[in-house]
């Protein structure tokens, strides 16, 4: 009897094992690579994956969250070995090359299903007429953060122009060890972003609409001159500052004015409540062009093609649509409010109301300024942009070359030449022009 029971249980186990392995074999595995490594983001993705797998038991999602540097190396290695994850975070500078080489799957049908018109203007970037990546959040680097208590104490009002910004920064810099203004001048992408906002605000662009390099234009010289002048009212260590310093140094309570992304206020609200109470937000001051131009870029996911080893493209498409729409998009945006801006207009209002109540003590005005992505450009869309009547007019040209220029940190090196080495702004702009032209010539040869 006991032996029969033993045989039955062994047999049962084998059948169960066989069934589960058959089920596993039938399951489609979708690998998902991204660099959103904040604990709340990881928690969000884990929950979203759980919900998706419950609805789609035949699909299993394998998530891999890596650092920003790790992502690039992983992507390049996976392309070489043809083992690309089905879904991955793609950077703007990779989009054009990868799409042209056939590594990405076009996503126009998905965008149409979601609603092309619901996307914030400029957040969908076509390559040769097709969309290859879907944005899941927008980053706005053009919010002016101000210490209201400092402004009141010194009788300074919110600066509306560059001249007022310079004067305000000077007034707020004092013997008490405070600095009027904060900007990054490290050899990094953030410095390039900051310089770009200044160049555009001064009426210049890196490229014209025919994709000729125009970096040594008067706008660049004005922007560099402004940075050289305002550096006197910034911490001396800005020459190594990057993303993190723009927040950490502000949180020391020694900074009066800071133009940066809304992650600053999210961190202040979470870690320094007094500073949060004394911080107000406004739009960037207007530059000599008559426009305050923000740097707003989309963070996107792309589907890799079978050419680079993607196996379950249809299942991946289903999961991708699931996470970049509806409640998932709302919930992800709420993980770091008001920093993560949903690219779908239909989701934004919900996020503003919920996020302001949950994170910002009901200060909805901060969320609205953070979510204002009007008059914005990014590296890929700036070629030939014009600045007229207080507005940015895009040329519609997508620049395939600028990614290589930014990746080499050339804009940041131009800033360093002026701010750290004291080089004449016009000479530094000419140096940048020469380096950029060489890169573009090289790329055009290929």
């Amino acid at each position: 009897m006991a032996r029969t029971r033993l045989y039955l249980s062994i047999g049962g186990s084998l059948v169960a094992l066989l069934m589960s392995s058959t089920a596993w074999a039938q399951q489609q595995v979708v690998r998902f690579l991204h660099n959103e490594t904040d604990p709340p983001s990881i928690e969000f993705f884990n929950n979203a994956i759980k919900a998706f797998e419950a609805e789609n038991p035949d699909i299993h999602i394998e998530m891999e969250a890596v650092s920003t540097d790790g992502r690039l190396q992983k992507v390049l290695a996976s392309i070489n070995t043809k083992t690309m994850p089905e879904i991955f975070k793609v950077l703007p500078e990779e989009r054009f090359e990868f799409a042209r080489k056939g590594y990405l799957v076009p996503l126009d049908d998905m965008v149409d299903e979601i609603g092309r018109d619901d996307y914030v203007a400029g957040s969908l970037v076509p390559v040769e007429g097709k969309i290859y990546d879907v944005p899941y959040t927008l980053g706005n680097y053009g919010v002016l953060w101000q210490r209201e208590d400092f402004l009141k104490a010194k009788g300074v009002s919110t600066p509306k122009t560059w001249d007022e910004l310079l004067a305000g920064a000077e007034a707020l810099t004092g013997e008490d060890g405070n600095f009027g203004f904060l900007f990054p001048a490290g050899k990094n992408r953030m410095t390039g972003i900051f310089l770009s906002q200044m160049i555009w605000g001064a009426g210049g662009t890196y490229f014209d609409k025919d994709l000729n390099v125009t970096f040594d234009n008067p706008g660049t010289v004005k922007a560099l001159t402004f940075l050289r002048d305002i550096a006197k009212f910034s911490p001396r260590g800005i020459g190594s500052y990057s993303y993190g310093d723009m927040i950490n140094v502000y949180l020391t309570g020694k900074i009066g004015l800071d133009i940066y992304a809304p992650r600053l206020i999210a961190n202040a609200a979470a870690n320094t409540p007094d500073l949060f109470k004394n911080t107000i937000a406004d739009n960037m001051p207007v530059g000599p062009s008559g426009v305050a131009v923000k740097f707003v870029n989309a963070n996107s996911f792309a589907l890799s093609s079978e050419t680079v080893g993607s196996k379950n493209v249809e299942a991946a498409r289903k999961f991708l649509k699931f996470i970049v729409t509806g409640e998932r998009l709302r919930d992800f945006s709420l993980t770091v409010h008001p920093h993560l801006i949903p690219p779908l207009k239909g989701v934004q209002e919900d996020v503003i109301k919920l996020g302001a109540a949950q994170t910002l003590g009901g200060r909805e005005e901060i969320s609205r300024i953070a979510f204002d992505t009007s008059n914005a450009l990014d590296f890929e869309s700036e070629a030939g942009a014009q600045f007229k009547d207080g507005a940015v007019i895009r040329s519609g040209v997508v620049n395939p070359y600028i990614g290589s220029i930014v990746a080499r940190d050339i804009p940041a090196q131009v800033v360093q030449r002026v701010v750290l080495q004291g080089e004449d702004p016009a000479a530094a702009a000419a140096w940048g022009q020469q380096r950029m032209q060489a890169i573009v010539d090289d790329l055009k040869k290929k």
Partner: protein
Amino acid sequence: MADNRAALAGDRLLAYAALAPSAFLLLLLAGVPTITVFVTAMQDVGMGDTDGPFIGFENFAWVFAEPAFYTALWNTFVWVFGSVALEMLLGLGLALLLNKSFAFRGAARAIVLAPYLVPTVVAVLTWRYMLHDIVGVVNAALMSIGITDQPLLWLNSQGLAMTSVIMVGVWKFFPFVVIAILGILQSIPQEQYEAAKIDGASDFQQFWRITLPYVMPVFLLTALLRTIWSFNKFEIIYLMTGGGPLDATTTLPILVYLKAFSDFEFGRAAAIAIVTLAILCVLLAIYFFFIKRAEARQ
């Protein structure tokens, strides 16, 4: 006689058979990547490319014509010889001190070795924070005792950045020198010191005539080993300064990384890596020369 020869041949065959798996693994783990890098260096490989057109030695020609390569080579020598010289001096001094008898010597030895045990990433990020101009404790301390009235730009002044990187490198790796030299110090027969004392030798004479000759082979070998390791050190400099400000701390390994993962010029990056390997081979040759000489002396 013929039997002996057959037995010897059999032994040799067995020896080769036993060595074969290791030789195969060595070839797989070291040979294949080196050959791959060399092949890449002969191609024009860009972002996302698995390979590219064969261009012969064009990438090597580019390396030798590129000013950034010579800046990086100079920076590499400053970094290597600056950090190794300080590590050796500090390591020797502390090893001599820790070889003496005093209270809590065990605890002192443990404390001295601590930096070597801290993971490099943790140590470097902590130092980076400590050297920050606004939130760093180093500047706060220097200002509070009046050494400077404004923060020193440890990481973003072209003059100080390399000094800061070397300082952190020395802090992290001098314990290795202490371990190596302390080991040899403890093996010196005490009778020699006793005999020298009886003959009236001073402390300095004892150090010069007994300690130094014993320590010197290990000292030189450690210095060479540290030189080779420092030559291709990447993470300390990359995490501290990213090679900046401008190119003030860009060494050859950093240049390889930037060429590959910022400029996406894998062919050129591979060519720099091969040239770096050639320089390291010269250092290795010196290392083996010293090893052989030390063995011959023994």
